[in-house]
């Protein structure tokens, strides 16, 4: 079973049930956000630090480590 999401205009496949962070890491992505001009990705992994936030289907500030990836999710980078 697999789930496909779009990130950076690319289709990425993950395992069914994985979080968005899990899908991105599985595809070799370590970072997906800019903070103070530098790349950031997952840090606390349990929804506390807010470092991994992405825009999902137009909704901003979604924690990638908490949100289960759903088929067809469009995931976009954020910058602060």
């Amino acid at each position: 079973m697999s789930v496909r999401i779009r990130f950076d205009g690319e289709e990425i496949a993950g395992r069914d049930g994985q979080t968005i962070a899990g899908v991105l890491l599985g595809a070799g992505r370590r970072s997906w956000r800019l903070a103070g001009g530098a790349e950031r990705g997952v840090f606390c992994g349990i929804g506390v630090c807010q470092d991994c936030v992405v825009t999902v289907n137009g909704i901003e500030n979604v924690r990638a480590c908490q949100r289960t990836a759903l088929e067809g999710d469009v995931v976009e980078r954020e910058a602060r």
Partner: protein
Amino acid sequence: MTRRVAILGAGPAGLAAAEAALSAGADVVVLDEGERIGGQYWRHHEQLTDRRMQHQHARFARLGRVAEAATVHREASVWRVDTAHGIRVHALVGPADGSDREALTIDADALVIATGAHDRALPVPGWTLPGVITAGAAQALAKRDGAIVGERTVVAGSGPFLLPVADSIALAGGSVAEVVEAAGVAAIARGWGRAPWQLAGVAGKAGELAQYAGGLLRRRTPFRFGQAVTRIHGQGHVEAVTVQHVDAQWRPVAGTERTVTCDSVALGHGFTPRLEAAIQAGCDLSPERFVVVDDRQATSVASVFAAGEVTGIGGADTALAEGAVAGFAAAGGSLDDRRISGAVRARKRMHAFATRLATHAIGPGWTGWLDEDTIICRCESVTRARLSEYAAASSRAMRLATRAGLGACQGRTCGRTVETLIAADVDFDRRPVLSSIRIGELARLHHAEHKEQE
């Protein structure tokens, strides 16, 4: 009339509380932010979790079955707890960070706060590079997602939790370059070797740790004592770390630096209790900043109980025992009741284990590995130098000028560190809104009809 007990958190403490409160005849409502019960200790996914990473699985399975007799609200972000006129808990229920979650209000006769703890990771130069995660993140990603953050990871910090983290990384397909523990061999021998008969009752815990140590040996993973990762190197991502000896105060020792090649780092220097619900409920805290409880796990606030890591860092077995006592007492049960005597005894045994964790407490010398331009507040990218400029100002002026601790995580990640560096208490744990919810959701609540639980 049946007493209703509301429980915040469905980790070991919360589930044990639910089981005990049900056994004492209460109507039980559990609220947890996760998609599944289990908390961090039993974080899992039916298909993705490697069973070898799930400890005490039989116990979890039993607690899970018991919890079916309670009302369990999963994906519930509790954002306010009122205790002024009876107990009322406000939550939003729905997928993480969704924009149209459902409002839920629970009234109860008693409350058990079992909100647990999250990792504390000390800042290290380079710690904002992609590939640096907390030890808990490495554990959560391995367990929940079957994912690893890199091919070759250095696990560093302090405390026995580093062992299961290294184990999970290896089971998930990663390789652990080294496990680096800041406490020295002498300190560990003193802390854990003293009065060993007190630990005789926690053989299960010792066996679990021995199993992880065996895994390290089998995989020939070096375990370093009295050392720390004092610098993380890389352009755009982790390429190596500096590992260095530290003295008993965790001061880095010049001339002992070694470079270890790796592509990822898992940092864990202990745990920070999640206190905001307890503080909002009005519970007294100890000088060490844990919720003060009595023998019944009762807090300073009538009908409010607390159990698990919010009352002191002690691990899952401690939380299970404390949770059972708290749930039983919250339901109106007496500690003289034979049904709870086993938990009372287990709690005493586990507290003997928990006091040993002081061996791994953060030493004040760690600030010696910071650079002036090391980021302290990750959310707002505030450096140590910037904080130092306001060291003499009031904490409010410091926060407003630097924005340290005012970012998206509300000081959860950097709060204690900022307090150390400016040598003043800032009280970051006092948060008007307990969890991350959207302003739009909050506004809509004014119009929405509250859904009352029967």
